[in-house]
């Protein structure tokens, strides 16, 4: 996969969730340019072109980052902060996709500049629909700044 053509960076440590999410996106042909990383460190490496992603260019941003909050090593909140702090990446849409309905998580995410906050429903139908909706929205409908 060409890491400079990635449309969705999906940060998720739970493989079941990841499988279900990717399946839902695939169903709507939205997972063709999707990179799935399993923790915050890997996510940051990708975003800022470090480590195994060092040969990609930071400027070639994905169209959206789907970010879980509870992650090994570096948590989602930290990833979000770093993305929004960096001038090169701060315009990059970040959608938090998490199990947490905690108010404090919602509030903090928005404070750090999250573009959307989605709670993963337990209900499979709802979950599938939510993932498909957000993929459609961010990849097809949203007009990113140039």
């Amino acid at each position: 996969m060409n890491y400079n053509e990635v449309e969705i960076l999906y940060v998720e440590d739970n493989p079941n969730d990841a499988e279900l999410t990717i399946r839902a996106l695939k169903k709507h042909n939205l997972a063709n340019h999707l990179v799935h990383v399993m923790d915050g460190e890997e996510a940051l490496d990708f975003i800022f072109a470090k480590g195994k992603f060092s040969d990609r260019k930071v400027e070639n941003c994905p169209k959206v980052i789907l970010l879980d909050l509870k992650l090994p090593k570096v948590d989602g909140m930290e990833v979000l902060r770093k993305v929004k702090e960096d001038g090169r990446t701060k315009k990059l849409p970040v959608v938090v996709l998490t199990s947490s309905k905690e108010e404090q998580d919602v509030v903090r995410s928005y404070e750090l500049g999250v573009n959307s906050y989605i709670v993963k429903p337990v209900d499979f139908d709802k979950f599938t629909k939510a993932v498909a909706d957000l993929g459609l929205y961010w990849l097809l409908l949203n007009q990113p700044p140039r």
Partner: protein
Amino acid sequence: MFSYTREELIGKGVEILIPERFRKHHVAFRADFAAEPEARSMGSGRDLYGLRKDGTEFPLEIGLNPIEIDGKTHVLSSIVDITERKHAEERFRVAVESAPNGMVIVDHEGKIILVNSEAERLFGYKREELFGKPIEMLVPERFRKGHMMFRSNYTASPQTRSMGAGRDLYGLRKDGTEFPLEIGLNPIEISGKKHILGSIVDITERKRSEEILLTSEKHNESLLRFSKQASQAQTFSAVLSAALVEVRFVLGYNNVWAYLFAEDGETASLITIAGGTADSVNKDFPVLQVKGDRMLEEIFENDRPVVVEDARLDPRTNKDIVNALQNRTIINVPMMLADRKLGALGTGSFGDEDVRVPTKEQLEYFSTMANRISITFNRIQLTEQRERAYEEIKKLNEGLEERVNERTKQLELANKKLQMFVAMADSSFEFVSLANLQGEVFYLNDGGRKLIGLEPGQEQPKPIAAYCEPATWNLIQYEGLPAVLKEGRWEGEGRLRNFKTGEAWDAAMRAFMVIDPATHEPLCLAAINSDITQRKRTEVEVASRSEELERLNKELESFSYSVSHDLRAPLRGIEGFSRLLLEDYAAKLDDEGKRFLGNIVANTSKMGQLIDDLLAFSRLSRQELRVWTVDMMNMAQSIVADVSKLEHGHTVNLALKSLPPVVCDGSMLRQVWHNLISNAYKFTRHTQNPRVEIGSYQENGECVYYVKDNGAGFDMKYYDKLFGVFQRLHRQDEFEGTGVGLGIVQRVINRHGGRVWAEAAVNQGATFYFALPQNGH
């Protein structure tokens, strides 16, 4: 007797012995006697006279006795020469006539037979007019009957005595006037008959002088009494009242007044008046104009009494006053004191009392009284002046005494206050000290001495620095004292020494400048330090406990977070893959297998709901209340809309009544309404004609909201489980639920300081109430 010899007379006619002028009659008398001879005296009261040989006559009495001599009747005449007796009678007559007393002789029948010239003068009759008349004509008509009785008694047992036995006797003159008299009575015999000689003295003069004497005595006694009264009188009016008593008694006037002349003689001011006219005089004539009032002018100019006999006629009087007061007789006498004319003392008659002119003696009496009154008035004036002076001195003294007392009281009060303040300061557990402006402590209370560990009797250190730990002294030196000097006060915390234990103690220090309220100059520095060692210790403990609590809270939070995040993920996996199985491998499963997979999905969704509710419930405790005024009506309406959407196909007859707004945490209250309303819908699902009523009422300062349904209800014996978390009163196959909803309701309402309760019966519906304080909290 006749100077004849016997021989010369025998045989001669008896008429030879009778004066020529009687002889003719005597012959006739003799013949009469011869016809009826009997022994008797001759002449029957007439004066008989004999004729001597020398031709002289002499008075005689003759007794005639018929005697039989040789059968012939002869007459024996016994002859007595009464010349001597006649002389005596004449002397008596002359004596009576010339007596200075009136003499009246009456016979036994009371007929007047003799009066002397004095008696003529006394009664004004000529004696001829009186002879033979009854004595009673000289007695005033009213005494006559009594007189006749007294006279006959006297005649029965005559004796020499004075008449009247002490009664006042009066004679009646010819002109009808009467006069007082005294009568001495003497029984006398004249020509052998009993007569009464009355010796009469006119006692008019004596009576008069007696009366004068009596009057003068009366006046003197009256004046004596008055003097006594006056000497005790303290006021002018008391003097005049006493005077009036005497004047009434002695003079018969019913008013007494006194006027004082002004120095210039222009006016006379009423000092006081006693008697019936007092009120009108006091009211209308307190001051009289002397000028132009002739009577007053006369009184003022003369030192003599002025008597107006009839004020209505007398040209000297002021007729206005006379008409007003109905004056009749007016008597004014000067009141003099050592040739100084004080004024006039007056009395007189008014109206019906008519004119009553005083006698000379009465005027004298009244003048004397005026003198006494002058003296008394003078005494009273002097006494009053003296008393006024005394009063003034007394008042001055009292004022002085009062001021001294006041000052003493103030001092005592101040002293007492000081003592109280010292006692208060001493009994305080705080460290209370005073220091002079040089920073030397000169007072330290008992509490302070204990706190710094001084032994009884041990002198407290002078410099403030001696009390402090070095750091504290620095604080005081560089922050405290400058603040006190600049702003008057300072507060801070520091550590002070305890000399006994050597351990410092934590002190909350308050220092201020004591200002003299009078001069506004600073007097001294005061410090009040509280021992806060214990508090400090407690604060530290509390702080560490708070930290612990915070840590626990954080743990709980991360636990909740984990639950929220981590518990949900596997559920999602179970559900997701079960659904995938159903979607992608349906053909390979029989119906029973599909049903099992369906059960797995249903259970995972149920567990998801449980987790959500549990998280919501635990959040309620941690979440801070954010209160504002919430439109309950609006909120209930929107929730009803949500709920009825969820409960589609279940139509409820809803009565939404008025719900007043309330200050509360809106997002929490939303959960309350949501849980209660959705319960009402849920539990009426199997009810015919389901009804839900939402309303409110005011009670005891609370607003009570309620949601009432006619659904399944519950048995009140399980009421205590109603609001418990995960407690359910219905089976899952009847009504689904996690048992958290009412737990949330109760927690939210409790956090708002309100109450929640319910009433229900099985299959008869339930009503849930919650009350919130009306003024927020």
